[in-house]
């Protein structure tokens, strides 16, 4: 298996994990799969770090592993403990998944054919098509946020968006600055969302006072 195939395989698993979260109504498995998704991205970082002999990728991999795979998972589970149910109350998860598939794939193909193919981007591994995975993950994250009402699922959508940025970054170029950036994003998630809001508000609905 060559380098490009390994990256494609990992990226496929990452996208599959995102679709699994979209099709899941229970909190626990969705949080676990988020941890797996982040771990896969960390492994990608390690792999690129070794093959390209770049310490930046290794540091990024370690950061993702500690902050996203471990700490965020712990915080989210802590938030869940104090809630009575562990399933989101919304219905129609299956139909949302189908809509999501249509939305993500069409949007990503549009991006690929109207932008990526035209601008002649050269990636680290000479495969532009691989960037499509990052865009699928981005749109999937956005769809998860807009399709769900619970704080935890919306937060998972937010993490998917972050993961998509990291994926785009590591596939496109060497990323010294992305290390700091991802840490700050995770601080946002850890400090505010996990510790306060997930404990305070489990679901979101339209409030009259916030209309207009």
């Amino acid at each position: 298996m060559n380098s490009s195939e390994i990256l494609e395989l990992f990226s496929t698993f990452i996208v599959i994990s995102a679709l699994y979260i979209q099709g899941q109504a229970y909190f626990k498995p969705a949080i676990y799969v988020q941890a797996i998704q982040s771990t896969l991205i960390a492994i990608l970082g390690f792999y690129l770090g070794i093959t390209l002999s770049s310490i930046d990728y290794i540091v990024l991999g370690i950061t993702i592993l500690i902050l996203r795979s471990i700490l965020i998972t712990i915080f989210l589970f802590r938030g869940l403990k104090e809630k009575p149910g562990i399933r989101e109350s919304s219905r129609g998860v299956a139909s949302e998944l189908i809509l999501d598939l249509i939305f993500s794939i069409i949007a990503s193909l549009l991006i690929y054919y109207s932008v990526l193919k035209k601008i002649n981007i050269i990636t680290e591994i000479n495969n532009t098509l691989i960037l499509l995975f990052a865009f699928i993950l981005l749109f999937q994250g956005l769809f998860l946020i807009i399709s769900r009402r619970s704080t935890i699922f919306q937060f998972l959508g937010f993490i998917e968006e972050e993961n998509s940025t990291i994926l785009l970054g590591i596939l496109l170029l060497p990323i010294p600055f992305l290390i700091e950036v991802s840490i700050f994003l995770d601080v946002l998630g850890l400090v505010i969302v996990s510790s306060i809001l997930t404990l305070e508000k489990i679901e979101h609905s339209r409030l009259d006072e916030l209309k207009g």
Partner: protein
Amino acid sequence: MDVEPLLLLLIPILINIGFFKLKLIKVLSILSALLTILISLSLYFLTPIITTFFLITKFTTFFLLMITSIYLLSTLYSINYIKPSRIVSERLYYILLNSFVTSMIFTVIVNNYGLMWVGIELTTVTSALLIVAEASETSLEATWRYIIIVSAGVTLALFSIILIYYNYHTLTITEITPENNIITRLAVALALIGFGTKAGVFPMYTWLPDAHSEAPSPISALFSGVLLPAAAYVLYMVYLINPLINIFVIFSTLSIITTSIILLNQWHIKRMFAYSTIENMNLALLGLVLGQPLGAIILLLSHAFGKAGAFYSSGIIVKILEEKRIENIDGLYSKLKLTSASLLMSSLAVTGTPPFATFIGEFLILQTLIQKGYTIEFVLILASLATAFISINYNITKIIFTQKGINQTNLKEPTLITFISLISSIIPLILGILLLVILP
């Protein structure tokens, strides 16, 4: 080593060391605000400062002055306004306030697009809990919307930063020269959506009325008066890489039109001012991209004080009358005289009434718009500004002068916060008169 910019960053952070005593952190926060204003003023005479880390020009110092002045006013206002809640204690409030201001200062003085992005992200981290300071159901929802929408937008902005890095292999602003290719075009377009989310550009501005209306008034003032200009500053810096003038003009015009339509039927006093912020901010952005920075700076400066005055006086109304619905507030002049004066003046200031400085800024920008040949946009914006002017001032005069219910004349205005509100709303008028003397 440039000491002044470093002090500007360090002072508001270091004073948090006084967190253990509430009185101490309050005093230190006021002291920090005063010191940062003095440093910002001194920087005006020391510019340009260009190092690998800092980029401070005269243009930047106006943003610094805006940030530090509203910082001082909001800190003073908070002393009599903020009460501890189950989520945010008073001490935590001041720590977050100081950190929020530092993150805004950091955003406008760094010489690196990546760090600017980090600064914008930091403003979200430090300000999110400030919105929820009153711990109501609606403020929690508003905070959540703020985090989710802004984070989604800022993720797109990171895509833009990645593309800039890909094209130039550096993110240092002073090392980057404008270049017209498809990658820079894409980067600037993505920045318009990404940083535009934070700056209140159509269609991603939906978090703004929620956050502004549910945050405590001193925080609404900081959001409206300085956070949005800081984001607009970053957006403008990215814009300079490849000036896509038409796309910026279209999106700004759309933002102004949509908000003026929403303003026609606005029922919530603070939301009304939040929508007015979107309108003013997009007009300032138009000024920047059209090459009319003077107009934009005048508008932003005047708007910062005017809008702070509007939020401060609305805060007094909400606190004393416990009412947010415009239709339920009446006879304000007989109840709260000084607050009425402040509300009326700030409302006139933010809607661009002559001789307030906002009018001069708006005039210069609109003049440039028509000079550059954007006639349709000019007509649409003028009509929108007129609509917004009528909507806001009609509501405010109704609140102040119409007398429907029982006259409660025994209400007492809180001295300090009323005084701050009044000062804030007078500044755009003084600035306007000064400019009328200086500009010709």
